[in-house]
């Protein structure tokens, strides 16, 4: 397979998985919040919580549906575009996917059917159990998917036999420390997204003074969720990064644009990066900042990319082991910047809530409403950092990306699939946004009662 096909396959993987996670990220958190609303309804028998669960549930379903249909592509893509990788690692990497399909996804997709169409076919409690099953299955599913990803980032539990990976120890696969940093960070980012989603849609109604009671309550739930989740996501991100400093120093150095090993290392706020000459032509930095963040010490040395490159060349043979530094540097900054902005926004909203003005002044509501794209952008940047930062490895230290791509698939075929997926995905996204806007315009109390 030639280089065009490799590049196209990588673009396809990046596009389809990022797209998938936009929708899945929302369902991770929103399923929990909808389950919570329905629990209130069952406990207090207050109709308003039923309307809430139905309204937010209908938006959740749009996202869930797109997540499900695009998930199919992901499962097939490993065999279609990355068949050499599948041969090499299927015995280990496929296992978490099998667990996911057989447990989480099976339970989730049966339960969702009953939840959607069973409002008046099963008892209240059984119906409540279904949404909790969906929420649990979604987050449990994430555990297996991320354990597969963690294996690519930081392989564990395998032996190399006949130039192929074989499973040696299942428990090592699921106690991979990388998994726990990644899992907490990812699930929390889903909650941040969902919290802001609920706040933004509620803000839309509050600005129009419609459904005030329902939306004030929803807004509060969204706010409580976003402030907690945003604070925690920043916290887990910090520890995740400290962990990266140990296991993937190259990724961390690249995301900080640190070319030379420094003792102490500065934290760079802004840099003009020259990847050709392997240096920053200009940078604005805080001395010792990175040493403090990565190692909790003002003087700790942090290894730079040039040293790591020399080290890897010695270890793995000649090659270029640097990821795309500029992309990583700015993705990381974008993600962190958005994280702090969202925390600030949530805190501001909390302050007005404290002063008994839930929702605060219209200007704040408007800002909250228009900040909705930001969490989407942040998770995109987060995944960009994780996956682009893994390059040039497909499995860190074991298999190069260029070695994993299908040998027999021509670039014409990858072009065809890339174009078709792009077209179909764009169409589905437009339809999903259109349907979601329609549901939002229709409002909570006008929900169709189609046996739902």
């Amino acid at each position, binding site marked *: 397979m030639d280089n065009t096909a490799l590049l196209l396959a990588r673009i396809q993987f990046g596009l389809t998985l990022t797209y998938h996670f936009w929708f899945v990220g929302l369902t991770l958190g929103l399923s929990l919040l909808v389950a919570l609303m329905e629990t209130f309804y069952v406990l207090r028998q207050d109709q308003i919580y039923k309307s809430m669960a139905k309204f937010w549930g209908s938006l959740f379903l749009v996202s869930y549906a797109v997540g499900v249909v695009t998930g199919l592509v992901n499962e097939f893509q490993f*065999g279609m575009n990355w068949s050499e990788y599948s041969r090499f690692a299927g015995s280990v990497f496929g296992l978490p996917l099998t667990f996911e399909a057989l447990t989480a996804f099976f339970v989730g997709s049966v339960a969702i059917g009953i939840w959607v169409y069973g409002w008046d076919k099963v008892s209240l409690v059984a119906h409540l159990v279904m949404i909790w099953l969906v929420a649990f299955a979604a987050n449990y599913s994430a555990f297996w998917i991320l354990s597969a990803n963690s294996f690519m980032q930081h392989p564990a539990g395998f032996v190399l036999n006949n130039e192929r990976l074989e499973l040696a120890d299942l428990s090592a696969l699921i106690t991979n420390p990388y998994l726990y940093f990644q899992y907490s960070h990812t699930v929390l980012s889903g909650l941040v997204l969902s919290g802001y989603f609920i706040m933004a849609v509620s803000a839309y109604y509050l600005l129009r003074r419609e459904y005030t009671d329902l939306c004030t309550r929803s807004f509060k739930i969204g706010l409580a969720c976003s402030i907690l989740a945003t604070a925690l996501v920043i916290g887990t991100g910090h520890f995740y990064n400290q962990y990266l400093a140990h296991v993937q120093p190259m990724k961390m150095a690249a995301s900080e644009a640190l070319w030379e090993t420094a003792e102490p290392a500065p934290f760079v706020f802004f840099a003009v990066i020259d990847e050709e000459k392997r240096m920053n032509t200009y940078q604005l930095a805080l001395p010792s900042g990175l040493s403090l963040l990565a190692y909790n010490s003002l003087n700790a040395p942090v290894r730079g990319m040039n040293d790591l490159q020399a080290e890897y060349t010695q270890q793995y043979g000649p090659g270029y082991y640097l990821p795309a530094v500029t992309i990583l540097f700015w993705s990381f900054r974008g993600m962190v910047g958005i994280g702090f902005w969202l925390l600030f926004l949530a805190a501001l909203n909390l302050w007005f809530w404290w002063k008994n003005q839930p929702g605060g002044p219209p200007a704040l509501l408007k800002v909250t409403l228009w900040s909705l794209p930001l969490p989407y952008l942040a998770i995109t940047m987060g995944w960009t950092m994780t996956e682009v930062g893994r390059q040039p490895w497909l499995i860190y230290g074991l298999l190069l990306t260029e070695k994993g791509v299908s040998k027999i698939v021509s670039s014409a075929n990858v072009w065809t699939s890339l174009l078709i997926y792009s077209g179909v995905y764009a169409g589905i996204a437009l339809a999903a946004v259109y349907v979601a806007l329609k549901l939002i315009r229709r409002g909570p109390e006008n929900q169709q009662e189609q046996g739902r």
Partner: protein
Amino acid sequence: MNEMDLNTICFGMFGFLFLGYLLLEGFDYGAGMLLPFLGDSAEEKDAILQTTAPVWEGNEVWLIAAASILFTGFPHVYATLFSGLYLALLILLVTLILRGAAFEFRDKDSSIYWRKFWDWSVFAGSMAPSLLWGIAVTSLLAGLPIDAQKQFTGTFWDLVNFYTLAGGLVFANLFLLHGAVYLTLRLDRRLVPRFEKFGLAAGRYALLLSAGFIVLSLLYTDSAAKPVFVFALTVPFLAVFFCLRSLKKRQYRLSFLFSSAAVVSTVFAVLLGLFPRFVVSSQNPDWSLTIYNSASNPLTLKIITLTISAVLPALLLFEAWKYYIFRDRITASKSDHNPEKMLWAELRGQLGNLRNHSTRLLAIITKRKRAMKKLMIKTDKERQSSVILHLNELRRKIRYSQKVAATITKLLSILRK
């Protein structure tokens, strides 16, 4: 357990999941293919979709489970087939995406074009997979160009020959029968005769095709030497025959049992013909992918086997419970299609629009008046003031209509209670 047994068990587990997928999605696909043709009115189309909407996701997940077993247990088969059958799988995935989206999006807009588009998406997402699975499964048996390095060396067209096309038709035909029989069980009694009639027609073709399939399989595959395979091929024929007979006697449940048996036995026969191979190589029989030369290590196979045996009973019970919940026949005129209720909803929507429009009109008038006043000095004052008078009158009338709309809305909300 020794290693050899494990491979067979895993192949069996894969076969079970794949059979489950085709059995369950078989009637979904059948119903989906019939949707644009046998649903006469909007309500009937809704009803047909309603029979599969709550269950399709739980059916499709069997495919995902089967594919993941293939990936984990037999990585070489997964890698060779998925990269080899690239374009076929692309069509499969795209149509399945559209079909899945249709179930969620279709009823969110009442525009006729919107619904038509999603109806045809359901059709495409049922037709294409039925044909493609038939083609793919039979081509595994007929042989694909696979070299010594386990790589597929052909193109899309190596998939297509007389035998595999016949296989595609057999699958599509069986699913049509299966779907029609499923609908006789799930739809309003008023609609049943139509699907019964269609089922009988589809059944006759299926009888013909399944007989032809026996002959073609003997001609085109090397499995003719296996007596078990030849025997297994006759089972679908018998199943279709009994399905037709019970359908004629209007024993729908029995007929569904037989149509299920027909789908299962067809796929089972093919898997039996393959065993212990997975994909037959048309270049050299020794290069065929078998359950031994393309499997994972024993530990992985063992874990798969244990996991499936542990979770499958629970999953089957859960699925069965779901089918029990949604056992009622779906009527084509449900309460939400009650014309009075729809009119009320329409009125509410129109009133909302009226209020929005008048608010906007008022804003425009106010803006224009301000602009007028600025121009006052330049133009004739008398004409100016008469225009402003008219505008004011207009404004009063709009305000009045707004009040009327508000009163009607209030009245409506009282009536609704």
